[in-house]
């Protein structure tokens, strides 16, 4: 990519920001690649981009190591001044060849950083040449750069590359659905969420292709066009991908504002999916009845601690839109907590904001509608939390040290970055996910009565 062909980005914020809760487009493409087991990212960038995102994305996403292909294991062209002057194409060519020779992997994804974009490396041509010589090697070029947007944009750029460079039309497979909208690392519970959603869909007889958090990378990517439907678990992330798949492969899509948390959201999710995909209502209702019964029987066990310690408390949320909507709705609609303020940190586009606002107001079973603020700047987020009523702050680890001293609130890390919670499979998705959220929230104060 040259800078003369700007990428389409949602990054509308143009001023300086203090400690934003996402990284750059390269980081998003990179963490998506690392999140699909079997994809080998190859960074065409400066040497620090991988290690920077090891600290910034992988550690930030729940203190996760980079895994076999992330962090300092990531092949990288490590561009310096001489490449700025003479170009980095030769270096990349040698790197691709050696990577394929050395590294165990199924799909290779060359991800461009700022340097090749600025110096005008023709990465596409390097890859075309390589493909001509090695047609059997699945390799794509994620056309991005650091300055082409945020981590969320990077996620879409990754799938953009997959669609354009890897996918071919395939006959539709009955009951196969792809799931998009969960960005590895940025959604700190991505691994557990992906697994839970897959299990849920399988329980109603669908074949779910989650892609992230899964093995068989090549197979899963290649079957994307065969899906009957695309499910997007976000009011905006993954929408471009879904639209493109609709255009190219006639796959319709349906979106939800986030990963469903607890029985109410999960039941609604399953009912809508069931209707669209023609799943027998009996199957859906049976599952809902069984799972609800259990979830609510278990929820009874928190009755005492809920009423004794901090009943009907106001709470504040600082999170990406997906997490913010699902968490707020669960706590308001099922636990009787009162939303005070919700700050959305992922910079969603205007059209998504309308939907998010609706979810956080008219969709709440309480008249205690929260103040909704879209903010990515850490300073302003902190200012906005001052002088309010909330007793709980569900936010990122950035708020851990200030929550008590500045706001007198108990704190739980539920959103990126999460430097104070190690998160492997833990998550809040599905029927029992709400209970897990309750466990975490109430454990911030529960003790001997």
């Amino acid at each position, binding site marked *: 990519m040259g*800078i003369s062909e*700007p990428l389409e*980005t949602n*990054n509308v914020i*143009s*001023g*300086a*920001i*203090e*400690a934003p*809760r*996402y*990284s*750059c*487009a390269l980081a998003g493409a990179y963490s998506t690649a690392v999140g699909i087991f079997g994809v080998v990212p190859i*960074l065409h960038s*400066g*040497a*620090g*981009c*991988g*290690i*920077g*995102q090891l*600290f*910034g*994305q992988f550690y*930030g996403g729940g203190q996760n190591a*980079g895994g*076999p292909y992330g*962090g*300092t*294991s*990531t092949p*990288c*062209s*490590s*561009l*310096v*001044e001489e490449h*700025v002057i003479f170009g980095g194409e030769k270096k990349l060519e*040698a*790197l691709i060849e*050696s990577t394929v*020779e*050395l*590294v*165990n992997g199924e799909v290779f994804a060359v991800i461009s950083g*700022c340097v090749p974009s*600025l*110096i005008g490396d023709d990465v596409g041509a390097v890859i075309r040449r390589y493909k001509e010589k090695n047609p059997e090697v699945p390799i794509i070029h994620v056309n991005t750069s*650091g*300055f082409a947007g*945020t981590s969320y944009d990077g996620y879409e750029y990754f799938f953009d590359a997959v669609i354009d460079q890897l996918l071919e039309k395939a006959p539709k497979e009955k009951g196969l659905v792809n799931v998009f909208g969960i960005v590895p690392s940025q959604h700190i519970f991505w691994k557990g969420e992906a697994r839970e959603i897959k299990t849920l869909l399988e329980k109603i007889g669908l074949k779910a292709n989650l892609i992230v958090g899964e093995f068989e990378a090549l197979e899963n990517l290649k079957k994307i066009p065969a899906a009957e439907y695309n499910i997007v678990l976000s009011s905006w992330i993954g929408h471009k991908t879904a639209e493109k798949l609709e255009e190219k492969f006639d796959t319709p899509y349906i979106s939800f504002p986030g990963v469903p948390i607890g029985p109410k959201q999960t039941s609604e999710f399953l009912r809508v999916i069931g209707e669209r995909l023609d799943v027998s209502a009996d199957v859906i209702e049976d599952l809902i009845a069984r799972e609800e019964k259990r979830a609510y029987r278990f929820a009874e066990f928190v009755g005492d601690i809920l009423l004794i310690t901090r009943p009907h408390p106001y709470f504040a949320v600082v999170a990406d839109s997906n997490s913010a909507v699902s968490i707020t709705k669960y706590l308001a609609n099922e636990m009787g907590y009162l939303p005070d303020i919700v700050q959305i940190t992922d910079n969603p586009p205007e059209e998504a904001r309308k939907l998010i606002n609706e979810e956080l107001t008219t969709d709440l079973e309480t008249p205690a509608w929260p103040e909704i603020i879209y903010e990515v700047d850490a*300073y302003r987020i902190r200012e906005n939390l001052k002088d309010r009523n909330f007793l709980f702050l569900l936010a990122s*680890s*950035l708020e851990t040290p200030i929550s008590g001293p500045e706001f007198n609130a108990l704190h739980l890390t539920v959103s990126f*970055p999460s*430097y*104070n919670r190690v998160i492997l499979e833990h998550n809040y998705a599905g029927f029992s996910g709400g209970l897990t959220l309750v466990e975490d929230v109430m454990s911030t104060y529960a003790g001997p009565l």
Partner: protein
Amino acid sequence: MSGTELTENELIEDRIDLSRATCPNREQRANGINVWYGKASDLAKEARSGCLRQRERNFQQSSGCVLNFYLSVRIGTIRDAVAIYHAPVGCSSAALGYRELYRHVPVELGRPANYDLHWMTTNLGERDVVYGAGEKLREAIKEAERRYNPKAIFILTSCTSGIIGEDIEGVVSQVQPEIKATIVPIHCEGSRSKLVQTGYDAFWHAVLKYLVKKPEKKQKDLINVASMLSYTWQDRLEIKRLLGKVGLRVNFIPEFASVEQFEQLSEAAVTAPLCPTYTDYLARGLKQEYGVPYFLYPSPMGVAHTDEWLREIGRHTGKEREIEALIKEEHEKWLPKLKAIRQEFENFKGNGEKVEVLGALGQGRLLAQVPYFDEIGLKSSAAMCQDFDNLILKDLEKLLAQMGDFDILVNTFQAAEQTHITNHRNPDIAMTCPFQGGAFKRDKGVTRVHALRSDAHPWSTQSGYTGAIAFGNFLLQSLKSHSYQRTMKEKTLSTYKDWWYKQPNSLYYLKAEE
């Protein structure tokens, strides 16, 4: 190889020129490299003859750049300051744990109770790349002042701001008159150098140029120690304890320092190293500009080196007698414990053979740790080193004379090469940075070289006398713990194909000379 040996004066560019915007790269200043494999004696010979040169790899892994190893995290800890990254949003994300991570150090152990750290990014986008972003930087500086009224504002540059040719000095000189804080531009464009150490030099250059004040008075009891938080909080406490016993005070920079501590660097009696290669540029600059004496070797690691380190400080502060008394007192306490550790290592194999250790170290730690390993009865017949430059040549030669030859693999976090040498050498203990890919997957002991966020437990100390004992015990522990690494080795796929481990050369992908 040419027969002419370079003299000390030719080995490094000694003069620090503060009229320039930044330092020369380590490549230019001291012929730094980060690709090499072979006998340490050959490395020293090549460097001494001026024939050593940087090579290219055909396979390379992400290893850290001038900005992102690990400058971002260090500068972010400076109190009463704001760091501004003139960069796209991703370059600063390594700094994201700024508010929470260091809270793990308890206030009782000396971490300031009330500190608030700040960083911003100018968030460069497509438009800025085309039209420039000087105005944005100006606005960010003003906003930083409005928000926090800091004493200093650090500007960190990036590949992008470098390549699009942002006039940082122009912006700084234009906006400085309106700003109370001292603006400190640091030229740490990721693409400017292959050597991460260049980032440290760039930082010290900026500190020397913009922050250090002319001495108002000399403080005869003040010792400058540039302490990275890859040395632990406990290392600081140990240094403070030892020097405190003879009535000396320590000025630790940069982590958790206040801006005033930087201003006072010129007033100290001596600049002493924890890590010589990290401290070098600052120490030379303070000597050249303000006559502050310095020494770079040894580091206070291991008993013998700690003795020497203290004696050096004694010489510069006129405390020779007090230091000798201190050393005597400390030896009485610690030497029996050191002996016990040594015995345990010596008996570990039960056949008279020594326990082998392979360390992945910075070049500063290489010089410090290899003799320490010997002190506690470990054998180190090979070492990995992040980079190598002429700054340490003389001391490497000295080390070789003392310790004999060993093999050395010079690379900056090249996980494949490190996994390879670890497999081939099959040492009893492999020391690694925590983030070195799959290097931990093996049947024997693996442990970290250092802590990342200044582990505050006494168990993690590495410096001084308590450190010599604690680190020895730490290494002993690593011999006993294998289940995670062995299970991972058995149950997970190797990143690299089998042939990699079967071929003999860690630097297999060295590019042929053209």
